[in-house]
């Protein structure tokens, strides 16, 4: 189960020419326990790729299999239910809010998937709790809270559908450093507690190195790397991906070159700090 891509290509239709967005993608994503980061330059096809995962876009050629459902579907086959199984959070999701109250907006998703009013309310409250929306805000208008809170409400709107796989398109874009870390902590907790597969598009290499287990690199529509982050940062062709190293690795490389502390990959600041303490005690 999970999501499989088999030689998938997609091109956007222009007036005269077609623009290839992704080409010949082969990919296998497990139903549980994955934390994947999709990275690549702007225009490399990341957003196009994730929109295939919940059937918003259908491949021009090749096959996507989402929870056993073959895409493109046969005639008259309904695919709407896939969007409950694979929850997709778009860039700047706060723009999709529209209901009168925050709670109603979070309930919108579950209600679309045939939950009763009581069930939907319960699911919405649970989701709101996960993203840290206070109970006193439930009856407020979603247009009268801060941008960071609006984003949390929008993400709760997807979480309330209780998707098996959560896909996030640059969820931390435009947030301040603290908001970024808080939001990532929520996804990490979801991943660790419920063993949910989380797929994340990000440009922030620090977040990728700290949270992701597996990294997929796209370059001009082609999948050029798929593997663990440890392998990615030691990859001999790393420079050809046009990516930046995460800050902890940069610091460690600098220290090795100029201070002579031996290089050991550390992927977040806490482990970097404890490693440096350890070294200085020796």
């Amino acid at each position, binding site marked *: 189960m999970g999501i499989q891509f088999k030689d998938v290509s997609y091109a956007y239709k222009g007036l005269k020419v077609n623009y290839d967005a992704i080409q010949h993608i082969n990919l296998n994503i497990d139903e549980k326990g994955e934390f994947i980061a999709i990275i690549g330059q702007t225009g490399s096809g990341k957003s196009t790729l994730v929109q295939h995962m919940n059937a918003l876009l259908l491949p021009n050629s090749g096959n996507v299999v989402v929870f056993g459902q073959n895409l493109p579907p046969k005639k008259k086959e309904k695919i709407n239910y896939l969007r409950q199984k694979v*929850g997709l959070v778009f860039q700047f999701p706060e*723009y*999709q809010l529209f209901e009168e109250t925050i709670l109603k907006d979070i309930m919108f998703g579950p209600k679309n998937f045939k939950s009763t009013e009581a069930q939907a309310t319960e699911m919405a409250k649970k989701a709101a709790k996960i993203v840290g929306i206070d109970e006193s805000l439930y009856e407020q208008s979603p*247009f009268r809270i801060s941008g960071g809170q609006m984003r949390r409400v929008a993400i709760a709107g997807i979480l309330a559908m209780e998707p098996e796989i959560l896909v996030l398109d640059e969820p931390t874009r435009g947030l301040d450093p603290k908001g970024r870390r808080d939001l990532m902590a929520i996804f990490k907790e979801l991943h660790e507690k419920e063993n949910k597969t989380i797929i994340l598009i990000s440009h922030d290499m620090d977040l990728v190195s700290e949270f992701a287990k597996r990294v997929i690199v796209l370059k001009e529509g082609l999948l050029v790397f798929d593997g663990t982050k440890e392998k990615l940062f030691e990859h001999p062709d790393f420079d050809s991906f046009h990516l930046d190293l995460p800050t902890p690795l940069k610091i460690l490389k600098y220290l090795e070159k100029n201070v002579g502390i031996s290089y050991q990959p550390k992927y977040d600041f806490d482990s970097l700090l404890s490693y440096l303490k350890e070294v200085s005690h020796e």
Partner: protein
Amino acid sequence: MNNITIGQFIPGNSWLHKLDPRIKLLSLVILLVGTFLIPISVSAIPLITMLIIFVGIMILTASSGIPMRKVLNGLRPIVFLLTFTFFIQLFYVKTGSLVFDPIPMYISLTSIVGIILFLIFYNWSKKYIKTRILYFFFAAFMVFFIQASLPYVGFTSYTLYIYDEGLMRAGFIFVRITNVIIMTSLLTFTTMTTDLNYGIESLLKPLKVIKVPVDVIAMMLSLTLRYIPTLLGETEKIMKAQASRGVDFKESKLKDKVVQIISLLIPVFVISFKRAEDLGNAMEVRGYIIGAKRTRIDQYTIGFVDILSLVMAIVILGLIIYSKVIS
């Protein structure tokens, strides 16, 4: 969503592209007035003038380098209207002499079945036909042809009289609407929105005397045109976002449709306000002041070709009026 062609400009280098936008607009208005002044009658002069104008427009199109297919595609939204008016004219004008002997028409089991079968065939086959507009006319004709040719197991019948005047009028109105549409679409095909905007602004300038804020209206017009694709893009994004929350825009009941449209409308509304505010600030930061005198980066000068085209348009209008007076 992508086939909206308002103000679709096709880049080119023909004389029609280079024509001064003010002259182009003015000539268009004059020619449109001319086309509507031609009286509908069966006598030779109006018919010939109409056909001459039609041929002239075809020559104009050819000289502009716009592919004929694009121009004819502009007719697509009104094909239904054209056919409808054609047949109404044909059936309800009962003066003049008969063109054909009265044609008996049968509404019968066979003809109804025949029409249904033909319509199914039409719907299936139209995918493979390139000249769809012509094919649509053919289909409309066939509906009547089948009624005339399959009389078996009849329920009721009527007789179709086709008078020459009716045929003339129908054809005349048909050509007139076609002319008007092709002329206006030639304008939008060969003129950039900025140029068009300038043309409108300077043609409306006399209204400034009675305190009409012409430059503001022109700016609003050009911004509106400019933001159509942007807002369409935003709408598509919101549609996808709501689809991810389980909204099924394609297949659902009417009751659900209302909620779905609200879930689309409110975000787009909010976004367009936000965009407008951002744009307003951006314009002010760059020194836009309402009512202040502004200079342009492009200077428009009227040359020989411009004057010639305007004179030609006026001459055509004059001839039409003259022919109307003498007849």
